[in-house]
């Protein structure tokens, strides 16, 4: 069935089709429609789930963790300040090996108050041990929630499904809503081997001495290293059943490209439009949209950038004192694996400043012109 829905509702439908059993959430702009629709679905019994209307995002994540430990499939959604309030518990979910799935609407961090998009909220959760998926369309949002549950439950690592504020969260698009029976076939019920129950009393997360702690973290990393394989595998399986591939990255006209743009989120599709137009003008440019940020798809990225002459990485985020975060990651992916390919790092669109096809044309023009980047960071559209 096809429906015209907003990005936020794509998250809700994803959670519904995944048969989330416990949802705990707190409202924050621009996430509210996610939980509004889910609360309706629960009240109308379209979705058989407990909805805990908590008093903060911190409690939302705590309740999701508790419910997941009890063996239930859990979902929540948040944004910016809410996500960062959860920060402590993001470690708790991954360290506890609990496959919670969360939607996060990318919103710039205050101060000053901003409700508009940038990626600093989710990217500053980089080292919490969560997988992170950056979506570019409402269809991808819905599909990714279902895939994320499958990957998370296989690896016992939580997942964050990320979408841009407004340009996706509040934008209506045609979305194919898969049949419930087919989703059930793809995503069987969550049946963890170990859960908290009086039938088999264990203490979870107690005081862990240096004798044991190290190994627990080693195992989390080892399973995270398996995640790119599992994502590709489940993505192909999804394609077989639903016709849409869910990979680690989405390259567009990259095979013969001299310049490859690297993007994430909705600007990935904006870049495709620019690439198409520039190709008509004879510019050999391609766009590599990174869909999965954690685990970072090192192998895949090196493979696609193999023949590129220049790479322009566009970050809608910044790590103060360093650079754009995708820039850093791509640079580390290429280290020692590729010839000395010039990497141009651009910061654009912070706090919801528009990123349009002309932004990418400007970036491409600059990259074409220079042999190598003259500035450490190239700022796009900043009023200096």
């Amino acid at each position, binding site marked *: 069935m096809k429906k015209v829905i907003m990005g936020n509702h794509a998250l809700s439908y994803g959670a519904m089709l995944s048969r989330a059993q416990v949802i*705990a959430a707190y409202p924050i702009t621009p996430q509210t429609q996610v939980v509004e629709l889910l609360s309706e679905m629960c009240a109308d019994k379209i979705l058989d789930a407990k909805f805990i209307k908590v008093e903060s995002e911190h409690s*939302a994540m705590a309740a999701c963790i508790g*419910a997941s430990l009890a063996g239930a499939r859990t979902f929540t959604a948040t944004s910016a300040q809410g996500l960062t309030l959860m920060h402590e518990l993001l470690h708790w979910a991954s360290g506890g090996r609990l496959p919670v799935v969360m939607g996060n609407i990318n919103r710039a961090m205050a101060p000053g108050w901003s409700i508009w998009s940038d990626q600093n909220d989710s990217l500053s959760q980089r080292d919490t041990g969560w997988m992170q998926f950056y979506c570019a369309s409402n269809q991808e949002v819905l599909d990714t929630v279902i895939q994320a549950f499958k990957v998370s439950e296989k690896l016992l690592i939580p997942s964050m499904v990320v979408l841009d504020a407004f340009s996706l969260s509040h934008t209506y698009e045609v979305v194919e809503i898969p049949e419930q029976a087919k989703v059930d076939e793809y995503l069987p019920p969550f049946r963890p081997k170990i859960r908290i129950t009086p039938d088999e009393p264990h203490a979870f997360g107690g005081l862990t001495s240096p004798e044991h702690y190290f190994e627990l973290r080693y195992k989390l990393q080892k399973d995270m290293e398996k995640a790119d394989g599992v994502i590709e595998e489940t993505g192909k399986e999804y394609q077989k059943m639903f016709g849409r591939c869910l990979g680690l990255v989405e390259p567009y006209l990259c095979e013969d490209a001299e310049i490859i743009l690297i993007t994430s989120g909705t600007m990935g599709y904006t870049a495709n439009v620019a690439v198409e137009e520039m190709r008509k003008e004879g510019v050999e440019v391609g766009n590599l949209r990174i869909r999965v940020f954690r685990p970072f798809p090192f192998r895949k990225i090196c493979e696609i950038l193999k023949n590129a002459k220049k790479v322009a990485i566009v970050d809608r985020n910044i790590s103060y004192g360093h650079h754009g975060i995708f820039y850093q990651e791509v640079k580390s992916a290429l280290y020692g694996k590729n010839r000395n390919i010039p990497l141009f790092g651009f910061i654009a669109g912070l706090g919801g400043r528009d990123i349009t096809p002309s932004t990418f044309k400007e970036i491409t023009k600059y990259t074409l012109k220079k042999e190598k980047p003259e500035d450490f960071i190239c700022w796009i559209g900043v009023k200096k």
Partner: protein
Amino acid sequence: MREKKGMKLSLPEEEYMNPGHLACQGCGATLAMRFVLKALGKRTILCIPACCWSVIDGPFPYSCLEVPIFHCAFETAASSASGVKAGLEMVGDHETTVVAWAGDGGTFDIGIQALSGAAERNDDILYICYDNEAYMNTGIQRSSATPYGAWTTTTPVKHFKNRPKKDIIGIMAAHRIPYIATASIGYPEDLYRKAKKAKEIKGTRFIHIYAPCPTGWKSRPEDTVKLARMVVQNAIFPLFEIENGEKYILNIKLREKKPIIDYLRLQGRFHHLKEEEISLMQEEVDRKWQRLLDLCAKN
């Protein structure tokens, strides 16, 4: 209760807490756990945030309890318990009692938001606060449960705590939850009865257990039970219940209310107090006791 060797047992013989725990000598919190579990039985899950009990239970992979424990984040005892309960319901376990088991810091201070949230929603959890009146696990720092006059490592003798203990029971009563009780490890039968009663009630239940801490109070370990009885008899910590936030029931009536001075003198944390400070404290206890009697008389 069954007869044993001619002695009538006032509590069940079954133990859900094993020897080998890591508590200090004379720890009131261990007795609180032991008595409560006798009442709740095996089908119980504990959510324990950072507090003495997250250490007492024993390090990974050990546990001295026969019931499962979720060691959760400091400020999340209530919200974790709400989540566990919802999760259990969804996997078909409608029977297990889910307990948030937190100290005074985790309840009065850092966990009060989550507790208030769960209580307002009337989530089906039993919240138990064992109160040793300071952050004992981190080395005796004041909490909002520390009483007026007490020394702690952050309220040194020269600047002893000059604010009264937070009225957590009043706060919980304002949420109009179905059941609230105070209890003391010095009155095990009363504590047992309250835990048992709470187990059978649906919705948010709150039990506030007075649990002396010899290490932090600078009292003798052998005085723990004595202090836990004196504190009831001098009306600093009266034993009562509140049903639906309104109906107050006094459990231990005091024919002769004892002065607080003897109780204070057994604890090093109050040694610095002068007579005039103690008489001010006595006045405050008398005032609060009268207020409680008035509330109970309304029923």
